[in-house]
């Protein structure tokens, strides 16, 4: 008791705080609330959560396999297309959802004392829940298409972790900047479009001319998707280690992931004391 009542300095707003239990309880509560409201609000909730990736998948599937007969050379192209769409949606939801997260939670930030980092992380956690739901659909589709489980599927959590690190880094960076500069959001939308077409989602990396292929693997998304194809869908497809040539080149995409994450962390922590008053 007396320990609890010792005077303690009330500093300004903080990013993480020293109470991990509270940090996690808040992140979890905000994330599950968002998830529930979005997907269990209506009777068809889960189906609605699948509609967006599935509709886009349907359109792309028809265009690329029936109209311009593009996916013919790729083993299980539809499964690859669906899985990469789901992974990209996860990445996009975390990053783009993160951008506006602080501004959307303005009321909470101005009225309550809590670790500021909870906000972008809860967005990432909600996106992770969604990914879990979508992966069920991917699994069903894969099994139905004749892609069967292999030990190398265990690489999927590692790939998701790489993707998460990059997306959370961007969410921290962009959410803090968005508080000051409101055109961050449209700018990020354009960048996201570039990433969508610049990453092997609609196509596979081996379609790209060789010298471009190496350059494109500087993009962490390309690394994740290429390795996913090798590990999950087609063991005959080149792994990222084969595709990139000298493995030391992997340091570039991994450096980008770690660099973006650390930059995001640094910017967010630097902006933390003034987030509430700049909103």
């Amino acid at each position: 008791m007396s320990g609890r009542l010792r005077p303690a300095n009330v500093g300004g707003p903080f990013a993480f705080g020293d109470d991990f239990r509270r940090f996690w309880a808040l992140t979890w509560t905000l994330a599950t609330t968002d998830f529930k409201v979005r997907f269990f609000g209506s009777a068809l909730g889960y189906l609605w959560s699948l509609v967006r990736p599935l509709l886009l998948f349907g359109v792309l599937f028809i265009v690329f396999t029936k109209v311009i007969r593009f996916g013919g050379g790729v083993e299980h192209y539809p499964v690859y297309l669906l899985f990469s769409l789901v992974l990209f949606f996860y990445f996009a939801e975390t990053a783009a959802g993160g951008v506006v997260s602080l501004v959307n939670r303005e009321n909470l930030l101005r009225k309550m004392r809590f670790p500021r980092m909870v906000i972008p992380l809860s967005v990432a956690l909600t996106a992770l829940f969604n990914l879990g739901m979508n992966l069920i659909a991917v699994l069903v589709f894969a099994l139905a298409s004749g892609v069967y489980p292999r030990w190398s599927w265990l690489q999927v959590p590692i790939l998701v972790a790489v993707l998460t690190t990059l997306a959370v880094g961007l969410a921290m960076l962009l959410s803090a900047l968005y508080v000051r500069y409101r055109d961050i959001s449209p700018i990020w939308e354009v960048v996201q479009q570039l990433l969508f077409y610049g990453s092997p989602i609609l196509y596979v990396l081996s379609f790209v001319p060789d010298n471009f292929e190496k350059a494109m693997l500087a993009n962490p998304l390309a690394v994740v998707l290429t390795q996913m194809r090798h590990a999950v869908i087609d063991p005959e497809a080149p792994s990222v280690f084969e595709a990139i040539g000298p493995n030391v080149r992997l340091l570039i995409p991994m450096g980008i992931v770690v660099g973006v994450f650390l930059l995001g962390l640094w910017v967010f922590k630097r902006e933390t004391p003034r987030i509430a008053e700049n909103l």
Partner: protein
Amino acid sequence: MLAFSHLTATASDRAAERTRALAGAPPAVLVDGLSKRFRLPHQQYHTLKERALHPFASRRYEELHALEDISIEVARGEFFGIVGRNGSGKSTLLKCLAGIYSADQGRVEVSGRLSPFIELGVGFHPEMTARENVINNAIMLGLTRKQARTRFDQVIEFAELEEFVDLRLKNYSSGMTVRLAFAVAVQVDADVLLVDEVLAVGDASFQQKCFDQFERLKSEGRTILFVTHDMASVRRFCDRAMLIDRGRIVDVSDPASISSEYREINFGAVAHGDQVAESGGQARILDGWCSEPGSDERIDEHMQGRRCIASMDVQFDEAVEDPSFAITFRNNMRHTIFVARSDTHGPTGHFEAGERVVVSFAFDNWLAPSRYTLTPSLAVAGSVAREDDVAELEVTAAHRSGGVIDPPYEVEVTRT
């Protein structure tokens, strides 16, 4: 209090423990030389595009001194009021205390756990049911999920919303939402509570329950810092209060002096406006209140049928001949129900400059049960001074007739 009957045992234990710990204990809240400035750039750029188009644009800014050199000590178990006009810095102060804004200078020390909210119902989600919102809100307050579940029934019982637990919050009336929010908030397991303007909500009977809860928190040795405009609640609850204006402390004192100083600041502001001609500057009303015969104690609650005394405190700044005093009672519909005036009782005489008087009106209280506000006024040769709603009086009665007054009467039925 019923809702908390099985909590009170542990609460009184805790209170005893706190009292033991009190001897030589540090203040609950210590603020030392706190300053806070906001930068207001002359030309503000909200987008990267604007920033890029105006790379050499002036980065000059003006500084708004929201708080300057604030130092206060609040003892454990104290109910401390922070009052001031709009924009005086009181909410900024509360946010600095809560760690929502960072201070530019000075330090804030708090002993014990600090409640994380400064407003009720923060984080309520309209799309979710009351049940889910209560659990979530309690977790945000710092309870564990398990604690939140065990206290859930008490919360709902206190809020009197048993029938609506599975209704989504968007279908709640604002009054119900506030009741729910308050019921969760008093569950907070904190030693120091920061409260921004909460008492102005709910109907009279729920307000009474809220007041009881504040009394309970106080008796448990918790410290409450309370920001408000409402002088009636300052006088009613606070042990001490602080008046703040333009970011500086004007005074820290007992609630009665602070509320009259607050009124002077407000009155001063009015006097510089267009009401100068009206108030004349000959006399000022410093305060107004109710009491019962034979007692100096101010009351804000009165039983119908008993004798009541309404008083006003007046300061004369010039010599005045035969002023007329009055106190107007308005009910919560803002209808004027009763005006006690001195001019119906003849001339009041001569008053010197600098003289200070208390004028009292004694009457049998036959007002219908409701909440009334008192507005004292003073008329001198064509000019009028008035202080709106300086005090409140809650009239209670065993029965409600439905009328606005309940004078005594006899009933007789005569057959014809």
